[in-house]
């Protein structure tokens, strides 16, 4: 066997032909010299040599690779067959492309979000530290915060004190590197540009421990993370592109941040987005040592964390030695963690008078190959649901195609029978049919890959609207390619094998003699079973589509408790613009007054959090004299508001009075004078904590843990009013017990009630505010309804995609139904002719076919209902305002299914009524 000769076998054949010609010439000339005539000589030579073509063929075969040779033949034959019925081919390839493309697109996102590790050296060696504890914490300021079980008060977190990080570095025997990084902080406007600017602090070994190489310049070396070092910053590739247009001369440039000036020393590679939550990437990465220098212009807790070991504000990761396990790492460092935590408690809370001994926290070690994973986990549910939906679509595509192919192979029985009769081997024929089907699937998969290339971005943009700073990329990498190929191969075998096997198992003489007979028994049964499965699956998808669509409609029309129309929101943050802290409240107040004067504005206010944004602040409530139930959830929501908040939002007071500027001023002075300050609560809180009592004049305070035992008299707040219930975090969420305080620390969101379309006032409002206070940075202008929509963007894209796929599935099922019936009608022409000859009316025949169609569809619906009842439970948490077995949705899906399938069945049925009895009977 010789590959070279295989590839050049045509040329070889030509060579042989020449060689044989040369033999002929020599032999003939010898024959002539023996005295033969020229013609006789040639003829004798021919005889002597034998059949030249046979010789050449023999040599040609010696040169060819049998398998490849026949594969090529099969492919060409397959292509001819496909071209002969372009309608079928287009439908098949398109449906395959949609099925495979949708799966590839969703998988490529799943790959990015769920499976992919950080693009660093040996990511599987990375570990991330977390801790869990009882309700009494050893630390003080946690950034990022602590998650608290609302009933037991058990706590968990992933931030540690700087001291813990240092101890880990000193004492570890199982890790080759330990490194730390802080949460993200906003530095909007620091570089003098509009738009977001985010930063993080990292330990000096952050990049080297991860094994990241710079795209430009250098990353941190050991000396950068020391107090005495020059202040340096590494910028992200994205920031480099956005701000500097990829200018290589960026190295050495300075970025002012608060009181500091940072020198750019390098750029991280484009694919490295850091170890923060998915989709969040710091523009500026600064050594931890620079944090104290930021002072008031940076996050305060970061500047103090080194001298105050009770502040837990760094995330700690490590690279473990290949020989050590997660358990060994934990055992190695648990003692170091505990002693550092205890030291922090002794120096902090305890020295300040805390007496109760805290709970001992427990160290946890988890895989760090994806960095922080909460965002990934939050997305995984909707991605998995989507994978199931597109998986069902692909199954429908497969069964639809299998059915069509089954019908086709039946039509081709004659061709196949003839080939078997002529000695074609069965294996060879199965292979040939399989090749045709695989060819179809490969074509479909190729087009599908194209669809996926566009589809993944569409899908990504859908899931990204939920978060403005969200920016993940998805590439079609090797794993995605592997997935597509695997899907295509499985599809090809599923679709092609059964029809191919069946086609070759037949009664030859019957097939050749009688090509017009209907398929009997198992062929018809298999086709029907496939069709019922298709109807069932598309019915399930229709129900899902209906549930999601109605969920979105419910969310859009839900009563949120305040007037969502004509309300403009924007953010304001004076912090990085060198406003002294004490001046901030008056700046806000000035801004509000200015906005009120803009024509078209009715009223303006501000709050700590925008409503319906998904953001929350959740302390726990304590009411003096009230006994807390052991299993009670005493979580309350906290909202800081400026005067006119309730009036601007349209939330009427039910009891007492609203909050005024005097309340705000009392709050500002309150702590100094130790006077109780005022607050408004909502109806839910009043109902839960003051049942049957007039809440006005009652007192309470909020705490960090549900099991804390209250607070001193001078920290109590007094209730002055009760406001009507309104939705807080999202439209979907139950209205929580809520406290409103009359002042908001920075930054704030402004809310402006307008008389007309709010977005038309943006420029005017911005100009008016910045005229009096050019430093106040205003950003993210949006309407309240747009803000609310963001919180159910996931539901919205689910509704869209499931409707899309549901209709696609319905269409495919109807094509399948049409195909099956059309085929069956064609085969029963004789029978219909006979029936009509014997007196059957057209209506009877129509009924006959429609009954068959309806029977199949109803069987499919019944199966689908059973599946839906079991399956929709899984998505019940994603629905709003309806149960997973919502009767209206199911009725609608049944109606749609019946109507559309009747149409698909009617066309073949009508053809059955057009049968001319004479023609049909004479056909025999």
């Amino acid at each position, binding site marked *: 066997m*010789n590959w070279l000769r295989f590839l050049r076998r045509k040329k070889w054949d030509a060579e*042989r032909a020449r060689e044989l010609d*040369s*033999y002929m010439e020599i032999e003939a*000339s010898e024959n002539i010299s023996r005295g033969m005539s020229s013609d006789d000589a040639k003829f004798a030579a021919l005889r002597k040599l034998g059949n030249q073509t046979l010789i050449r063929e023999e040599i040609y075969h*010696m040169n060819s690779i049998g398998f490849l040779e026949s594969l090529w033949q099969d492919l060409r034959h397959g292509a001819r067959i496909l071209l002969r019925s372009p309608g079928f081919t287009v439908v098949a390839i398109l449906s395959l492309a949609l099925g495979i493309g949708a799966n590839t697109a969703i998988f490529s996102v799943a790959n990015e979000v769920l499976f992919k590790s950080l693009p660093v050296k040996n990511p599987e060696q990375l570990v991330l530290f977390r801790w869990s504890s009882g309700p009494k914490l050893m630390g003080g300021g946690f950034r990022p915060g602590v998650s608290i079980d609302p009933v037991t008060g058990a706590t968990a977190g992933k931030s540690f004190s700087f001291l813990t990080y240092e101890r880990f570095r000193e004492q570890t025997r199982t890790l080759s590197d330990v490194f730390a990084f802080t949460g993200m902080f906003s530095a909007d406007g620091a570089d003098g540009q509009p738009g977001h600017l985010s930063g993080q602090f990292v330990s000096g070994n952050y990049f080297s421990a991860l094994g990241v190489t710079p795209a430009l310049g250098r990353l941190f070396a050991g000396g950068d993370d020391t107090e005495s070092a020059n202040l340096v910053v590494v910028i992200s590739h994205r920031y480099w592109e956005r701000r500097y247009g990829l200018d290589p001369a960026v190295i050495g440039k300075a970025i002012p941040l608060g009181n500091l000036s940072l020198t750019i020393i390098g750029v991280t590679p484009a694919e490295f987005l850091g170890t923060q939550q998915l989709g969040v990437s710091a523009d500026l990465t600064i050594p931890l040592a620079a944090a104290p220098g930021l002072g008031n212009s940076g996050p305060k807790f970061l500047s103090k964390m080194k001298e105050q070991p009770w502040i837990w504000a760094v995330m700690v990761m490590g690279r473990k030695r290949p020989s050590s396990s997660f358990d060994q790492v934990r055992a190695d460092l648990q003692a170091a963690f505990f002693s550092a935590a205890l030291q922090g408690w002794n120096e902090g809370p305890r020295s300040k008078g805390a007496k109760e001994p805290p709970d001992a926290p427990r160290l946890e070690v988890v895989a760090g190959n994806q960095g922080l994973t909460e965002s990934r986990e939050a997305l995984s549910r909707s991605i998995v649901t989507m994978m199931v939906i597109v998986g069902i679509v692909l199954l429908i595509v497969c069964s639809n195609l299998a059915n069509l192919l089954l019908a086709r192979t039946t039509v081709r029985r004659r061709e196949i029978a003839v080939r078997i009769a002529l000695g074609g081997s069965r294996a060879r024929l199965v292979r040939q049919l399989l090749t045709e089907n695989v060819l179809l699937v490969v074509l479909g998969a190729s087009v599908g890959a194209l669809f996926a290339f566009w589809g993944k971005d569409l899908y990504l943009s859908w899931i990204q609207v939920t978060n403005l700073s969200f920016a993940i990329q998805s590439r079609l990498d090797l794993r995605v390619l592997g997935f597509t190929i695997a899907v295509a191969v499985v599809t090809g075998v599923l679709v092609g094998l059964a029809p191919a096997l069946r086609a070759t198992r037949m009664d030859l003489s019957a097939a050749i003699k009688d090509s017009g007979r209907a398929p009997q028994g198992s062929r018809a049964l298999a086709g029907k079973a496939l069709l019922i499965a298709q109807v069932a699956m598309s019915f399930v998808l229709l129900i899902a589509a209906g549930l999601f669509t109605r969920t979105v409609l419910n969310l859009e029309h839900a009563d949120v408790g305040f007037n969502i129309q004509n309300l403009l929101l924007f953010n304001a943050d004076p912090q990085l613009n060198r406003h002294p802290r004490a001046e901030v409240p008056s700046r806000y107040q000035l801004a509000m007054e200015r906005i009120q004067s803009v024509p078209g504005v009715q009223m303006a206010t501000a709050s700590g959090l925008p409503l319906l944004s998904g953001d929350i602040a959740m302390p726990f409530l304590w009411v003096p004299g009230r006994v807390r139930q052991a299993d009670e959830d005493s979580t309350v929501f906290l909202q800081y508001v400026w005067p006119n908040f309730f009036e601007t939002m349209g939330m009427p007071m039910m009891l007492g009075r609203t909050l005024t500027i005097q309340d705000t001023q009392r709050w500002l002075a309150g702590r100094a004078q130790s006077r109780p300050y005022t607050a408004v609560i909502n109806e839910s809180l009043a109902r839960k904590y003051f049942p049957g009592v007039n809440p006005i004049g009652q007192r309470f305070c909020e705490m960090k843990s549900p099991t804390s035992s209250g607070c001193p008299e001078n920290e109590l707040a007094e209730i002055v009013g009760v406001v009507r219930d309104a939705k807080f975090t999202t439209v979907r969420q139950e209205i929580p017990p809520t406290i409103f305080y009359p002042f908001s620390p920075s930054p704030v969101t402004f809310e402006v009630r307008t008389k007309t379309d709010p977005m038309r006032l943006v420029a005017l409002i911005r100009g008016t505010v910045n005229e009096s206070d050019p430093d106040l940075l205003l950003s993210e202008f949006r309407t309240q309804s747009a803000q609310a929509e963001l919180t159910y963007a996931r539901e919205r894209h689910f509704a869209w995609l499931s409707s899309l796929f549901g209709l696609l599935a319905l269409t495919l099922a109807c094509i399948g139904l049409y195909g099956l019936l059309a085929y069956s009608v064609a085969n029963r022409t004789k029978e219909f002719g006979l029936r009509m000859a014997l007196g059957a009316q057209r209506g009877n025949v129509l009924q006959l076919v429609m009954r068959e169609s309806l029977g199949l569809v109803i069987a499919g619906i019944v199966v689908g209902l059973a599946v839906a009842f079991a399956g929709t439970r899984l998505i019940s948490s994603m629905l709003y305002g309806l149960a997973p077995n919502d009767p209206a949705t199911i009725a609608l899906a049944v109606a749609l299914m019946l109507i559309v399938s009747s149409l698909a069945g009617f066309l073949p049925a009508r053809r059955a009524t057009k049968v001319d009895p004479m023609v049909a009977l004479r056909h025999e």
Partner: protein
Amino acid sequence: MPKRDAPPLQSDLIQGTLDLLILRTLVLGPAHGHTIAHAIEHRSDDVLQVEHGSLYPALHRLEDRGWISSFWGTSENNRKARYYRLTRVGRKQLAAQTGRWEQLVRAIGRVLRPVTE
């Protein structure tokens, strides 16, 4: 022309034997297909009738194995022809196969020899 008393053996010519004959013929020097065919007939006193056509696949097979190599040359009467030449491997093979053939012939001969008392 074949002699009447010795009918040609061509149909019995076992595959492998033809290879051996070709190799043996080429020991004398490079030759083209026509020459080889005639040489085999001639040297066997026309007992071994080679169907000339079947020679070419055999030549191809031998070349494929590397026992002979080929080149285009000019024949005695000035015509283009493809010449074959024995390679070193081919020469070794010839020795080995000839030995085996002789063994075979002796063995068959022993079996066929009339039994002596």
